[in-house]
């Protein structure tokens, strides 16, 4: 058990792990309230303009949103398996699961980019070039503004997550991660799962409003 794993301000590795985990949870709580403000804004406007929100939501590509939900859930599975491999000291499996998680993250972002491109081509980006059925024109822009801000912020978190995972692959490859010092993988996983949870709520709220109408 390498002594270098224990930072000098901690009594032992258990205390160090406890502090790291707690610190990440505190950060995630601030993130929860950060996204919470957007979910609140969404709820207020959806309450005001339900028909416009349903009409705008129908223009989103449902299969792409569903596919991305499955991709992110799968990436959460590979992430938790990476944590398990780290705790068991299986370095090869750890690196492979981290790379699989990153690959799935890239698939998610590619599908998202494809959706943004489609929405750009269909003139669904709010602003001067926005085009929509006349009776929903004004308030559909509010939906699309929220859609781009919420999914954009989520995508930014995914990109951050990919950066974190790249560092974790490097640390694992270098042999810094050991069963005694696996908490970097554990807390990176907490962040990754949190971003997954945000998408779990974004998917039905943005893609599935009033689908039964058509």
């Amino acid at each position, binding site marked *: 058990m390498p002594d270098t794993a224990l930072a000098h301000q901690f009594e032992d590795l258990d205390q160090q792990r406890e502090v790291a985990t707690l610190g990440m949870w505190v950060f995630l709580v601030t993130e929860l309230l950060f996204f919470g403000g957007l979910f609140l804004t969404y709820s207020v406007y959806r309450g005001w303009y339900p028909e416009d929100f349903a009409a705008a939501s129908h223009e989103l590509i449902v299969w792409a949103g569903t596919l991305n939900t499955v991709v992110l859930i799968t990436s959460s599975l590979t992430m938790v398996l990476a944590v398990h491999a780290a705790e068991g000291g299986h370095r090869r499996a750890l690196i492979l699961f981290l790379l699989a998680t990153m690959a799935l993250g890239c698939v998610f972002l590619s599908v998202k980019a494809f959706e943004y491109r489609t929405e750009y081509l269909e003139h669904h980006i709010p602003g001067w070039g926005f085009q929509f059925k006349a009776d929903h024109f004004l308030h559909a822009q509010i939906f699309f503004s929220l859609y781009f801000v919420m999914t954009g912020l989520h995508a930014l978190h995914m990109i951050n997550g990919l950066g974190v995972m790249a560092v974790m692959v490097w640390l694992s490859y270098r042999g810094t991660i050991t069963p005694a010092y696996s908490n970097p993988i554990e807390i990176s996983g907490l962040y990754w*799962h949190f971003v997954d949870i945000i998408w779990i709520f974004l998917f039905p709220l943005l893609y599935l409003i009033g689908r039964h109408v058509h």
Partner: protein
Amino acid sequence: MSTESRAATRPYYVVFIALLVCTYLTWQVAFFDLGRLNAIAALGIAGFKATLVVWYFMHARTSSRLTWIVAFGGLLWLFILLALTAGDYLTRG
């Protein structure tokens, strides 16, 4: 990995399957006209999925009480944010 390790990861696969089933459900239920229940069903299923992820994937199951308090504290503040604002917007004439 050893068979012992395989047994330890089985719950993760079970949760994974449950999350996929819930995704299918949330997608299917959106195509039925349930009135206001549509939104409640969507949020209910999403909440259940989030709970599964937090409890099993984020290891809340085996986390310390202090971590639980922090997580519940976050939910409490989110509830205050949503409830007080809803209290305003839902009661306007």
